């Protein structure tokens, strides 16, 4: 009896060593966890000095991640979860600033800058060429300059 017991114990031990497990994911539901990460990555950890909610190890961050998991399980959409957070903590918690009148300048700004820059450039080039053509150089001078430029690469 004892022998049988001991040998089956040894066998189990042996098997568990040889066939060591592929590690189990920490999260009970990896799909849910993925969604949690993508949502919380775009949120601020409010008690940290600029870290995302997804990575922070602070207690509040853990609590808020727990809330988000619950909301995901309840079937809420990403937008609803964001609204949940914003209702309690304001827009400050979102790393992606919402598009509203106060942030129009922010979102449109770069695009406007780009257009303004290119327009200014074109205007400058047009004006410049008309100005410079009045200071025309002779053919000879031009040839000398080109030669100098080639040497001086």
């Amino acid at each position, binding site marked *: 009896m004892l022998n049988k017991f001991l040998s089956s114990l040894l066998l189990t031990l042996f098997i*568990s*060593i040889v066939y*060591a*497990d*592929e*590690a*189990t*994911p*920490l*999260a009970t539901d990896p799909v849910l*966890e993925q969604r949690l990460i993508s949502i919380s990555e*775009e949120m*601020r950890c409010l008690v*940290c*000095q*600029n*870290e*995302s909610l997804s*990575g922070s190890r602070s207690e509040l961050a853990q609590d808020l991640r727990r809330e988000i998991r619950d909301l995901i399980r309840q079937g809420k959409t990403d937008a609803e979860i964001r609204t949940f957070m914003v209702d309690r903590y*304001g*827009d*400050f*918690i*979102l*790393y*992606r*600033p*919402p598009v509203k009148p*106060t*942030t129009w*300048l*922010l*979102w449109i*700004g*770069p695009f406007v*800058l*780009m257009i303004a*820059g*290119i327009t*200014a*450039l074109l205007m400058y*080039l047009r004006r*410049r*060429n008309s*100005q*410079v*053509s009045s*200071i025309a150089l002779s053919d000879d001078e031009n040839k000398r*300059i080109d030669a100098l*430029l080639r040497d*001086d*690469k």
Partner: protein
Amino acid sequence: MIPEIGHFALILALCVSIIQGVLPLIGAQQGRREWLVLARPATQISFLLLAISFGVLAWCFYVNDFSVLYVAEHSNSQLPTVYRLGAVWGGHEGSLLLWIFLLTGWAFAVAQLSKTLDEFMVARVLGVLGLVATGLLLFVLGTSNPFERLIPAAQDGRSLNPLLQDPGLVFHPPMLYMGYVGFSVAFAFAIASLLSGRLDAAWARWSRPWTTTAWIFLTLGIALGSWWAYYELGWGGWWFWDPVENASFMPWLIGTALIHSLVVTEKRGGFKNWTVLLAIMAFSMSLLGTFLVRSGVLTSVHAFATDPRRGIFILLLLSLVVGSSLFLYALRAPKSTLGGKFSLLSRETLILLGNVFFVVAAGSVLLGTLYPLLIDALNLGKISVGPPYFNAVFVPIMVPVLFLMAVGPWASWKTTDLKTLLKRLWLAAVVAFVAAIIIPSLIGEFTILTALGFLLAFWVIASGVLQIIRQCKVGMPTRSFIGMQLGHMGIAVFVIGVTMVGAYQEEKDVRMAPGDTVTVGGYQIRLMGVGPAQGPNYQAMRGTFELMRNGKVQELMYPEKRNYDSSTMPMTEAAIDAGLTRDIYVSLGEPLEGNAWAVRVYYKPFVDWIWGGCLLMALGGLFAVLDKRYRLRVKK
């Protein structure tokens, strides 16, 4: 006694800087030679005094002099020697001293290497640098004296934040500051020309190597910071668009525009006003960055301990320096002459267009960084602007830049015709499209963003290779040419790294007991065990992991969870197996029941290409600086 020497040296340096700043500038204005010639010796003495001061502070750290408040706050007798020295710039006061020390160092270099430069110019350049140094010395002596005493002296210091106890600390700030501070030289040259009323190509020729050198250091400094964050912070990210990161990136963007603009001003005499404005902007960005980091105006992981008095002072300094420069610019710029003519399609235009994009990029980063402040100041609420915004905005702006990078070098000066360009570039376009379609499909998921990344990267690489082939047929390429190729290739390599890691990295968060294996990226990682380990000033739990591929053990990895004597928060020290085509990253989490541990593993393909690309860029800059014509100049 010794700390007082350091303090006294600073006070003397202030006096000398005032002389260096004021007299040569007035002298140049009024033609007083006796005052002009004071510039060089004043600069030399200034540098010597700062070297003494800095040396004294370093000495205080080395010998553990805890009667100095700054040492007591940032060091500790158990701290390994190398970190005791790094701690010199681990806090606000010391890093500011490093700033000024490097400023006087750059000024010294200019003084020594400008023997062939017109003495009025030298006087003005050194004078401007002297004024900047004066402002900073007043700041240090007034609000941030590193030599303040702690009476009675502490038994032992508070020690350095464990996050900073890393080789990264030893190199990152000095490199970064060499870059920031280095732009002051371009700035000084720009102001000097505005003051003299002579804005010509000679000024651009003089500024170029100094500006490029500063740019090299800034590139390396930023890359080091990014790499350090990657391996130290334990979450595998390499850029967070944190305000302080942005504060270093904006000068880099303007600086890159500046080095390209200087090329045109030097060769063709064009863009003088624009280049001067860029030079002023680059250094202004450095000063603005200094303000943002030390004033408490923005939240950041990097922010130094803040004091509103300091914020006000730096803002005043910033206003004076930049305000007066821009005022001088408004007065003098209209008077400069135009350069040569060039048509709408020419190398000049393409470079200028690239400039526009870089400035727009810098402006966008500035907008995003300061927007929360703007909204708060107008009482319109509180918002956050983080990575989602910056990524959404920055990437589209950089796409045209990458496009231009491959086209610009093929365009001739003055004018170039479209047919020729197309003839040169069609092959590169084909290679780019093929790569964009094939590579993502082979590796895994095909997405538009991934394809775009490869398209642009291979567009630049293919164009560069074709340029090199063409050049070699004609003759030996100049160092300038090599520099340009390396610089542009560097960006392409960087883009490949970013694209690969962004699209194909794998992450697993698992529970592991000894004997368990986790598979990631085609590798198996097996936990052998976790046991205690001891460091000079910490206790740790160290895991031993086997990294295997196809059943064969390649490497052993030892991630740690450290508890430093000086801190209550445990620190994660990830284990990274770096390779040319991938990093495997293993990080120990919390201990779990049953002898198991929470473990996080990453497979990061081509991540080192990110910093490799930066290295290539810096190398390119080095070749450009070492171009023969600068050598010749010095010999004459």
